[in-house]
């Protein structure tokens, strides 16, 4: 087994707030430059860009963990990951249906460009992807785990859209596969502020919206090989697999 460097939270040009330079090709280039082995693609409330990134980055030896950053009705951001393309597509439609019916205005919020390998725009989802869904965090957790996905509370150290900021504290009966720290904190600082959370698995990710932020922070996944199953085991601390963060 060995360590794999993983930045599991990056946006693409599909997120309205994602910079136009966040194309699949550029993300792959930057990830390789930063020495990452694994990148997570997590646009706001959509998994649609994952397939192209997986294709482009896969050819260059990167493993792409495919998912989305979902906004619950409490406005908590959660990462959800799935292995199979049909699960991703089903989940995408499920979330889109539950997303508030607000149209994107590119002038105000930015373009939501679904692009192909050559950075040509294929389509633009009509609904504003940074809106909230009408799913409670419990409903979302149940759905993700029912589909054998991974469920991670995003940037738990951030007041806005982090679970502690929105809900005051982490509901103890909610089943997270990991808690994610943003680049604005460290494991040591977070655990000294919230010592009761220290038994969770932690990851740390860049939440990159701009190309230079890709890989700004990362998680070391200690495991056999970069696969969905091995990542799952690392998050669940099974069979000697584990995650490690910079202190």
């Amino acid at each position: 087994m060995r360590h794999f460097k993983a930045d599991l939270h990056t946006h693409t040009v599909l997120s309205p707030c994602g910079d136009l330079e966040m194309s699949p090709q550029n993300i792959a280039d930057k990830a390789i430059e930063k020495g990452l082995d694994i990148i997570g693609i997590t646009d706001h409330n959509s998994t649609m860009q994952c397939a192209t990134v997986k294709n482009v980055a896969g050819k260059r030896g990167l493993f792409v963990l495919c998912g989305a950053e979902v906004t619950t009705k409490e406005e908590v951001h959660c990462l959800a990951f799935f292995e199979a393309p049909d699960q991703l597509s089903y989940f995408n439609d499920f979330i889109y249906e539950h997303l508030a019916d607000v149209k994107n205005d590119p002038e105000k919020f930015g373009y939501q460009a679904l692009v192909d390998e050559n950075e040509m725009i294929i389509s633009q989802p009509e609904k504003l992807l940074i809106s909230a869904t009408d799913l409670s965090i419990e409903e979302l957790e149940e759905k993700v785990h029912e589909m054998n996905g991974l469920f991670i509370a995003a940037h738990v150290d951030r007041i806005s859209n982090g679970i502690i900021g929105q809900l005051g504290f982490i509901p103890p009966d909610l089943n997270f596969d990991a808690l994610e720290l943003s680049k604005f904190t460290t494991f040591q600082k977070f655990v000294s502020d919230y010592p009761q959370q220290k038994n969770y698995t932690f990851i740390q990710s860049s939440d990159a919206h701009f190309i230079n932020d890709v890989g700004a922070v990362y998680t070391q996944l200690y495991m056999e090989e970069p696969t969905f199953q091995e990542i799952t085991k690392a998050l669940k601390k099974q069979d000697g697999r584990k995650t490690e963060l910079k202190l």
Partner: protein
Amino acid sequence: MKVSELRDDLGLKVFSGKEGMDRNVSGGYVSDLLSDVMGNSREGQVWITLQTHKNVMAIASLKDLAAVILVKGHQPDEDTLKQSNEEGVPILGTDKPTFEIAGKLYKTLEKHEAF
């Protein structure tokens, strides 16, 4: 001023926590960020929010708030109701938006010299 008087004055629906209708109201607090309520609300206040998660009740009871008012016709989640009944902290409801009900609450409390 008691929660039951507030219910009558503002025409509020009572979802749960009927045992707490005699609780004394000493002010109001408006926020949908639960961490903010946890940090800044004070004992005896009525909390106006659109959040329906069960953590609302955990915080209301921890901070010894008089009651919670859900706005815009929001319904409490099932486990939120349950906890409200267990703790005896009432959850009230209105179809009005936050701005309107907060204005009415302020006027009523002022009239009753409740804060």
